[in-house]
C-alpha cells in the first residue's frame, strides 16, 4: 500500500532535484493531453504545465498566419492578439475562428493540438443551391457562419466539399462530418439512404457508405448530436501524410432521382482529427 504520509524532506522527490523550467521543457516533449494530465500530479507540475514554452510548442507553426487571415469583422482577431500562447491554445480549442472571408472556421483539437476546419455551407458545392425554388439561404443564430443552406425540395441531392491537404496537420488521420439539422417538415430521408463518400487527391477511389440520414425506429442511427446543438454524420476519413496529396473531397449524395427530399439544413462540413478512443 502506497505510503500516504509522504515526508516533505523526501530526497527522492523529483521536484527537489529538477527546477521547474526543466520540468516544463520535459513536458513540452510530450503531448497536450499529457500536459493537461500532469497538472494533477503535484503543485510544481501544475505550475510547470502552464508555461508558454509548452503551449507555444503545441500551437501549429502557421497558427498566427491563419489568425491574421481571420475575417476582420470577427472580434476574435482582437482577442487572440492579446492572448498568451497558453490562452490562445485553449481558446482555439473551444472557439473556432472564422477565416477566409467567412467561409471557413479554424480551431484546434485539444488533445493533440492538430488543426480542425469547418467548411461553411457557402463554401460547399451544392447542386441547385442557387435556385431559390430548391434551396434557401438563411441566417440562424446557432450557426457560426453567417448563412446556412436549407433544402426546400429537391430530387437531386449532391453536396460536396473539398479541402487542401496542405493546410491540414501532417501525419494525421482526419474524419469529415456533415453538420446539419432537420427542419420540422423533413421528408424523404427516411425513405431513401444517402451515399457518403470521402476521397483523397486524384487517385484515391475512397469508400462509399450508404445510410439512412433520418432512420425509422428499428434502423440504426449513425448521426449524433454535437455540442453546439447541430447533428453530424461521418462522411468518411482519410490520412494526411505530408499535405501533398492535393485535395480531400467529401460528399453526401442521393441522386437516384426517384425520391423528393426536403427539410435538410446544412451548416457545413467539419474536418477534424480522428479520436484515438
Amino acid at each position: 500500500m502506497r505510503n500516504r504520509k509522504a515526508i516533505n524532506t523526501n530526497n527522492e522527490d523529483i521536484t527537489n532535484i529538477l527546477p521547474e523550467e526543466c520540468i516544463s521543457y520535459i513536458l513540452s516533449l510530450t503531448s497536450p493531453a499529457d500536459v493537461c494530465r500532469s497538472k494533477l500530479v503535484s503543485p510544481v507540475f501544475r505550475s510547470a504545465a502552464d508555461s508558454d514554452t509548452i503551449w507555444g510548442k503545441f500551437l501549429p507553426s502557421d497558427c498566427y498566419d491563419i489568425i491574421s487571415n481571420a475575417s476582420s469583422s470577427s472580434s476574435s482577431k482582437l482577442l487572440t492578439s492579446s492572448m498568451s500562447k497558453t490562452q490562445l491554445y485553449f481558446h482555439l480549442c473551444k472557439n473556432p475562428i472564422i477565416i477566409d472571408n467567412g467561409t471557413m472556421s479554424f480551431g484546434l483539437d485539444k488533445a493533440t493540438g492538430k488543426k480542425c476546419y469547418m467548411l461553411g455551407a457557402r463554401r460547399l458545392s451544392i447542386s441547385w443551391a442557387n435556385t431559390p425554388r430548391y434551396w434557401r439561404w438563411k441566417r440562424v443564430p446557432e450557426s457560426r457562419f453567417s448563412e446556412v443552406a436549407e433544402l426546400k425540395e429537391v430530387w437531386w441531392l449532391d453536396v460536396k466539399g473539398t479541402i487542401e491537404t496542405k493546410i491540414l496537420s501532417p501525419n494525421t488521420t482526419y474524419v469529415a462530418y456533415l453538420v446539419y439539422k432537420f427542419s420540422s417538415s423533413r421528408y424523404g430521408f427516411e425513405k431513401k439512404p444517402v451515399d457518403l463518400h470521402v476521397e483523397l487527391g486524384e487517385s484515391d477511389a475512397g469508400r462509399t457508405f450508404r445510410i439512412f440520414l433520418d432512420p425509422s425506429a428499428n434502423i440504426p442511427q449513425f448521426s449524433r448530436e454535437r455540442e453546439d446543438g447541430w447533428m453530424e454524420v461521418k462522411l468518411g476519413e482519410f490520412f494526411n501524410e505530408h499535405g501533398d496529396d492535393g485535395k480531400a473531397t467529401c460528399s453526401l449524395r442521393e441522386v437516384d432521382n426517384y425520391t423528393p427530399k426536403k427539410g435538410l439544413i446544412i451548416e457545413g462540413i467539419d474536418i477534424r482529427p480522428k479520436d484515438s478512443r
Partner: protein
Amino acid sequence: MSEVDMAVIKPEMMKSYIWLQTADGLIQQVEQEVAMFCPMICHEVIQKDMGSSKNYAISLPQRVNPAMLSLILDYCRFHQVPGRSNKERKSFDEKFIRMDTKRLCELTSAADSLQLKPLVDLTSRALARIIEGKSPEEIREIFHLPDDLTEEEKLEPLKNTTDDPRIRLLNRLYAKKRKELQERQKLKNIEVEEERVDDRSVDDLLSFINGDNGDSKGIKNSKSKKKNRRRKDQQKNTSANEAIKNHNKEPNGLNQVCHSAEVGQKVRAGVGATSNLHDVEDDIFDNKNEPDDGDIDDEIDPALKEKIDREVEDFARRLNSDWPERMQEILSFGHERKPVHFSLNGNGSLRRYANSEQR
C-alpha cells in the same frame, strides 16, 4: 598513446587539464577538450580565466555532484571526438541513458546547470517518454511525489487558463461522486491520514464558512504557502474545532473531503485525457439510481445548490450526447465496437458492412 610515446613528446604538446570543484569540495582535473565541451565550463575558462590550476578550480553549480559530473564527462568524452558517425553517437546515447528515473532527473538537472544542451535534450526526451500516457497517479509513483495537491487543485486543473464552465460542472459531478465514495470508505474503516488531513479539512472548512464556494482562484501559487499553512493550522486546529461545533457542521464528513488519495485514482479530473471523461461517463451510469446526497453542498446556500444540481444534470445529459459513439455502442449495438454501416442489396434487403478505414 603509450607512456613511452608520451615521454618523447614535448611538454607543450602534453594534454592540458582543467580543474573543477564540485559543491562538496572535491577537486579534480579533467582533460581540457572534454571539459570544454560544457558551455558553462568553457565560459569560465575563456571569460574568467579560471580552471588552470588547483587553486583556481572552477566551482561547479550545486546540482552537479561528483557522480553526475562523472557521467557528464563520460558523455563529453565520447561526443567531443569529431570523427564519430551519427549512428555511433546515437548508439552511445541509447545505452548511456539507461539508468533509473531518479538518476535521469539528476543528470538532466546537472546538464542543465552546465548548459550542455544536447545532453539536456537526450535526458529530457527519455523522461518525456516515461511520462507520456501515464495517469497522474502513475507519475507520482514513478517520481516518488507526495500526493499533496488539495482536492480543489486536482479538480480544477484549467482554472488558470480558461474559465471553462464544463470543467466547473465536471468538478461538481466529481465532488458529488467523491462524497459518496468517502461515505462508503468511512463505513469500511479505512485508515485516514491524521494530522495532515485535519489541517486541510480546516482550511476547507474555513474557506467554505467564509463563503468561498470551492471556486477558489488562489490555488495557483499555493505551493510555497502550503508549508506555512500547515504550521499555522496546527495552532488553528483546536480553535477551529470549536468553530466547527458552533456552526453545527459535520466535522467527520468534511474531514473525509480531503482524503483525496483513493479518490484521485478513480476521479481523474484531467482535461484532454479521454480516460477522464470515460470515468465520468461511468460515474453518470453509476449515479443514476443513487439517492440524492443532501449534505454534500451544505456549505453552499440552497438556491445556489439547486442551480448547481440542475447544471450537473444538464451537463451529465450533454456529456451523454458528447460521447455518442460509445453511447451508441452501449445502448444500441450492444457488444459491437464500431458503428456498422448498412447498405441495400439489389433486392432491397439490408446488408452489413463493417466500418473500417477508408484507405
